[in-house]
């Protein structure tokens, strides 16, 4: 599904990701854990195609197709989704309008045609209800004045409506209280399935109590320094990142 080989990424001419190799097969959820500054978000942005995150070497493919040559919107249409650590506030644009533009643009790019307006509204309402998001909130400008927890719920809503092939969740737990974390995790878990892969990026083990990964990778100073099963996350929680920082 998502295959990354020897990926190198530079930001402002400084190499941040120094050769990451990683494969997430369909149906699996992998976690990337690492201390602050290890390059977790840089990896996420580079995979999504953000300007300023220059891939200087290596490859990344989704279902065998090179994604690095594609624009961000083309990657999205192929089914790649990034849940932002800091979702952007967009005054004047409602969540409904934003989601409608997003879903229809992806469908048009895939040759599926736009979704009829009523069907779209029904879909959005159903997914919103599962995340305890009211109709009134859907009409408000996207993320404007929302709490950290509300923003993450809206990221989960976007993910549920867009139903991507592969989702990257960047620090989804930051800014969430425990109830919101459970709710978001529940909705993320509902999307797990044999045809979908996920990469969950987190600093803390806490999130992985609720979104249980198949594999855990430790990213330190731009490299994956250890990989293992879910027990690796527990070990990190106990012992911290120190030994990996010294080794890297």
């Amino acid at each position, binding site marked *: 599904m998502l295959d990354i080989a020897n990926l190198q990424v530079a930001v402002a001419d400084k190499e941040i990701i120094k050769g990451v190799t990683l494969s997430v097969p369909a149906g699996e959820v992998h976690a990337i854990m690492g201390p602050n500054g290890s390059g977790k978000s840089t990896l996420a942005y580079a995979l999504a195609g953000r300007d300023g995150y220059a891939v200087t070497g290596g490859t990344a493919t989704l279902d065998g197709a090179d994604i690095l040559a594609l624009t961000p919107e083309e990657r999205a249409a192929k089914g790649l989704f990034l849940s932002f650590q800091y979702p952007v506030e967009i005054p*004047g644009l409602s969540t409904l309008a934003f989601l409608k533009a997003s879903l229809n643009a992806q469908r048009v790019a895939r040759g599926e045609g736009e979704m009829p307006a009523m069907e779209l509204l029904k879909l959005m309402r159903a997914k919103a209800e599962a995340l305890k998001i009211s109709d009134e909130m859907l009409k408000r400008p996207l993320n404007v004045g929302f709490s950290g927890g509300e923003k993450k719920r809206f990221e989960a809503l976007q993910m549920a409506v867009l139903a991507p092939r592969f989702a990257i969740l960047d620090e989804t737990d930051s800014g969430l209280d425990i109830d919101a974390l459970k709710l978001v995790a529940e909705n993320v878990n509902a999307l797990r399935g044999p045809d979908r892969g996920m990469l969950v990026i987190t600093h803390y083990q806490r999130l992985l109590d609720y979104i249980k990964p198949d594999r855990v990778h430790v990213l330190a100073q731009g490299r994956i320094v250890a990989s293992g099963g879910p027990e690796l996350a527990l070990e990190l929680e106990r012992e911290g990142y120190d030994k990996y920082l010294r080794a890297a």
Partner: protein
Amino acid sequence: MSFAAELPTRRVEAWKYSDLRAALGDAPHVLREGRDIIERLAPGTQSMDIPAGEARLFVERMDDDAYLDARAFEWRVAEGATLTRVVVQTGAATALSTARVTLASGAKLRQFVLAEGGKLARIETHVALEGEGAEVELNGIYMAARGRHADLTSVITHAVPNGVTRQLIKGVARKGGRGVFQGKILVERGAQKTNARQYHHGLLLEDGAEIYAKPELLIHADDVQCAHGNTAGGLDESALFYLRSRGVPESQARSLLIEAFLAEAIPQDLPEALREELLGRVRAWLESSS
């Protein structure tokens, strides 16, 4: 004396960003002394009174592509009355409008201007809050494509206590287009408890776009709440990436963000058909000029 000699030069503070001489040349006009230059250019001043307690809506469309359109208005809004005024300036010719509005106690002015600019377009509004508790909402947007000059100028004078002003102006300019905002709010010594907010935000959509802003708050009273903000910059790159990461193509993402940016200044409570017309104008502009 030639006509041009009577026109303001750009050394005149109120006209520093809008070159009326260049726009009008030496066209023959009959001038009357002692009035605002636009009032002298207009064929006459339209005077109206809004009776106490009543509400009126006026929509002015300035859409001439060939000839100078100069208009002057004078409104007196009586106690508790509301004047809602919408100006839609879209023509390519020179368009000049000046309005003087006086508000009695509890009277309201709600104005919205959409200006696409012209050879030179200037919509000037002078508001005097003369009765206590009067309220002003003075919003507007400008969209200056190549070769268009859009100037929104206003002077709001709080002469008595307890007045309220809300002003939100948003504008965009493309390469070769010029947007101007000059907004003065004067709070006189006796105008205690005035509550005034003035915001202007401009977006320079391309290199070679020009936006000039001169916000002024002159406060002579000591017990007031006043705030203002003024920005000019480019489109928010993080918002652009956010939309693109969801699958929206770049050009569509830009249009959506610009529309959202401008729509914030369009009052929510205008008649639905009118609001739709204004939003339609914004969309048409984005499609035609991009």
